[in-house]
C-alpha cells in the first residue's frame, strides 16, 4: 500500500468514527458528505483491485486481491447502509451474519485445505 492510500483509508476510518459519534439530530441539509466520501473510497479501492489484475502474484497469493473487496464491503455497510446508526440489534444481526459466514467458510475449507493423500508406507521399497 502506498502512503497516499494509507492516508485515504485513515481519513475514511476517521470520518466513519465521527459520523458514528455525531448526535442523531435531523440535519437541515441532507447528509451527503459521508456518502461522497464513501464513493471516493470505493472508487479508489476499485482502482487498486483493477491494478492488482495486472500485478504478478503467485497462484496461492492471488486470493489476497480479495482484501480491497472486503474493505469495500465495509465501506458500503458503514456509510451507505449506516450499520452504525439505528437500533443496536441491527449491528447484532450484521455481526451474526458475518460470524456465521466465517464459520461456514472457515470450517468448510478446513477439510479440503488439510486433506492429504492417504498415508502411504514411508518405508521405501528401495
Amino acid at each position, binding site marked *: 500500500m502506498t502512503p497516499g492510500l494509507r492516508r485515504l483509508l485513515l481519513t475514511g476510518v476517521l470520518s466513519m468514527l465521527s459520523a458514528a459519534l455525531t448526535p442523531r439530530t435531523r440535519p437541515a441539509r441532507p447528509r*451527503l458528505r459521508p456518502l461522497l466520501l464513501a464513493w471516493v473510497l470505493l472508487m479508489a479501492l476499485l482502482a487498486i*483491485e483493477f491494478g492488482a*489484475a495486472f500485478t504478478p502474484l503467485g*497462484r496461492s497469493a492471488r486470493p489476497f486481491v*480479495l482484501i480491497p473487496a472486503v474493505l469495500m464491503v465495509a465501506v458500503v455497510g458503514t456509510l451507505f447502509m449506516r450499520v452504525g446508526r439505528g437500533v443496536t440489534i441491527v449491528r447484532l444481526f450484521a455481526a*451474526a*451474519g458475518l460470524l456465521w459466514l466465517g464459520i461456514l467458510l472457515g470450517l*468448510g475449507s478446513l477439510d*479440503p485445505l488439510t486433506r492429504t493423500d492417504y498415508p502411504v508406507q514411508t518405508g521405501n521399497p528401495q
Partner: protein
Amino acid sequence: MSDASYLPHEFQYSSARHQAETAIAGMWLFLATEMLFFGALFLSWVYSRHWNQAGFDAGAQQTNLTIGTVNTAILVASSFVYSAGLAFIEVGNKRRLIQCCAVAWMLGLAFLILKFGVEWHDDFHKHLFPGPHFAITGALGGGARLFFIFYFVGTALHGVHMIGGLVLVGWVILRARRGEFSPGYHTPVAAVGLYWSFVDMVWIVLYPLIYLVGRGP
C-alpha cells in the same frame, strides 16, 4: 423522528417509530440470511478452485475484465445515488428522492444490460458456456468448465437479486410520486436501500472471485 408519534402504526407496536425501527431490523436480519445463501456459493468456489487451480484460473483469464470493472463502478454509483436519495427524503426533499431513485434504477438497468446483453452474449459467442461446444479443451478444460459454472450460476443468481431490486426501487419511485414519503415516514425507502446496497456488496465480492483471482501471469 419525534414528530412521528401521531403517525398510524400496527396495533402490536407502541409507536410508528417503534414499527419503523423494527422493520429496518427485520431487513437486516433478512440480509444476514442472504449472506449465508451466497456464502454457500462462495464455499463452492473455494472447493472448485482448490481441486482444479490451473484450469480454474485459465477459465478466469477468459473473462472480460473491462466490462466487469465498469459494471462494478456502475453498481457502486447506483448504490451511492440511492443512498443520497434517502438522505434527501430525510430532510423532506421529495423531488430529489424521486430523481435519485430514478438514476439508481437506470444505473441498475445499465448493469443488467452490460452483464447479460453484452458480456453473456460475448461469452456464448466465444463458446464459454459449459455446454457441448465448450471452447477450452485439453488438460485445463475441466477446471475451466467449473470456473464458468461458477461464473454463470453466480452472475445469474446475482442478476435475479438485481431484478428483484429493480422491482423494489421501481415500487419506491411509484410510492414517492404519490407523495407517500415524508421525513417522518420513509421506512420502505430505507429498507429497499439496504437491500439495494446488499446486492451491491454481493457483486463487490463476486468481482474479484470472477475477474481478479485467476488473472495474472
